[in-house]
């Protein structure tokens, strides 16, 4: 058990050290979502009216953009694995007396902390958007962001454990990331999309992460009518978090298995 625990914190510590050392990543992880928010907000804001009473397009998009930031930060856990393999550092980690489970969890937790940091930075612009953030909102957001991020990291690490080259990984991620984001209801309410699109959105796990964050920031879906309906029932934050967590558990277990396989 100590090997799992030590593996987790040592690997997470190094992920954070890397993040702090790489200023460019610090910068891009904050500005990429802002760019989306500004351009999409300015471009569509006037065309699309209020989606619900008091919720204009920018306000609607804002929690989705935050979830999108969490997704990119989390998938970086996978980038980091492929990177380490290419530069040989993975060997140093694999020969150390650390459990494989710990190494995978460490990568995921490292990514989650970075994601959390990014969320905090993005929340700083909430007054400009016109979304009121209260301490209770933040208290609710933290566990949701951490669970979402760890789950999505599992996806990144799982893919990384099968990829030998940086290019191959980037390519696959590019192919995956767009449907994950665009089908997740970041830019449109899933409930108002055509049926076929709704089906695709509802099998996309990212949808529940986006909606959970949106409900926490903009208020319960039960009243806004913007939520996700599954089998005739509007999903609550709790249900959505359970879905994301279950999926994360499966992805992380598969990632650990993928890591063990390469010994």
């Amino acid at each position, binding site marked *: 058990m100590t090997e799992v625990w*030590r593996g987790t914190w040592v690997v997470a*510590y*190094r992920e954070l050290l890397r993040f702090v050392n*790489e200023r460019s990543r610090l910068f891009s992880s904050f500005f990429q979502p802002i760019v989306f928010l500004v351009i999409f907000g300015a471009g569509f804001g006037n065309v699309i009216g209020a989606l619900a009473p008091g919720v204009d397009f920018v306000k609607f998009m804002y929690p989705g953009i935050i979830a999108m930031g969490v997704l990119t930060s989390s998938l970086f856990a996978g980038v980091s694995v492929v990177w380490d393999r290419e530069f040989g550092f993975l060997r*140093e980690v694999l020969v150390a007396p650390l459990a494989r489970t710990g190494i995978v969890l460490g990568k995921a937790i490292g990514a989650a902390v970075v994601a959390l940091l990014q969320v905090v930075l993005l929340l700083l612009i909430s007054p400009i958007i016109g979304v009121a953030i209260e301490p209770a909102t933040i208290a609710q957001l933290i566990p949701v962001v951490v669970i979402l991020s760890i789950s999505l990291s599992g996806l990144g690490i799982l893919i990384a454990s099968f990829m030998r080259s940086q290019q191959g990984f980037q390519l696959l991620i590019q192919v995956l990331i767009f449907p994950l984001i665009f089908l997740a209801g970041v830019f449109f309410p899933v409930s108002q999309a055509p049926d076929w699109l709704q089906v695709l959105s509802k099998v996309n796990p990212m949808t529940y992460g986006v909606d959970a964050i949106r409900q926490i920031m903009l208020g319960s879906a039960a009243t806004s009518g913007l939520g996700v309906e599954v089998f005739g029932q509007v999903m609550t934050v709790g249900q959505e978090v359970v879905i994301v967590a279950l999926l994360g558990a499966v992805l992380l277990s598969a990632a650990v298995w993928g890591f063990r396989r390469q010994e």
Partner: protein
Amino acid sequence: MIVEVDGLVRHFGQIEAVKGVSFGIEAGEIFGFLGPNGAGKTTTINMLCTLLTPSAGRASVNGFDVVHQRAEVRRSIGLVFQQPTLDEYLSAEQNLRFHAYAYGVPADVRERRMDELLAMVDLADRRKGSVRTYSGGMKRRLEIARGLLHHPKVLFLDEPTLGLDPQTRRHIWDYLFALREREGLTIFMTTHYMDEAEVCDRIGVIDHGSLVGLDTPAALKRSVGGDVVTLATDDPAAAAAEIRDRYSLEPEIRDSEVSFTVEGGDRFLPEFVRGFGRPIDAIGLRHPTLDDVFLHLTGREIRDSELDAQEQMLAGMRQWGGRGRTHG
């Protein structure tokens, strides 16, 4: 025995890379593991380091089984690979700290050991610098320091000083000898440098997946069959005939020189020169080297393709630089 290997086998599909290797290493020994590329050297090391699971047989390091007690084995060994395994985006210090955390080295021991090791590899003044800015030699030195950080019982060195200048090599070896004295460090290494192989207490030679030789360097050299005497004379054929008749040796004529192998050449030579019936233009005596041993056991030169490739690259670079100058 700090390392015990018993009938170790590893298959890769149909290919049997290691075919039942057995040997033991005493604590404090410097053990050289030699063999041509593809002979099963790396496969054997990877099994001892718990990176590969043996197909059959068993091995233990520091008393721990390499299959069932992986974590304990890992804690007992230090590894310096041929390929770099540093995090280039961190500083030397950060790389060492990561290692110390990963191996659970206590904080007070860690800082003292880090200072000592950084001084040994001459990187104390660059400890805060990003590894990205280091030269190849500096990276290698840092890896060696890192491999020793957690007080390993056995240090595995895969071509430890490849590409290092003679001064640094000396320095590192002095420190390794000191550690052996002080901590009883056992060293298991592969090398293509003859002088480095000479410092080994014992050498194991592996070829085609089997151990073909295992002894002290002196004994291995003796096993080649004595010293080589080379003789220049105006009539090689007649000289060869006389040697054959008088001493019942087996001389060979190569490039109009007569050469033969004889046991105890140092004592044989004065007597031979005194008693030989023909004029001798020149005579030479050569003791067998580990190169001869390697050639004898594997049929190949010790400085095989691995170094050749590197030298070709260097030669290519020199040539390239040279051409640049003529154009400039």
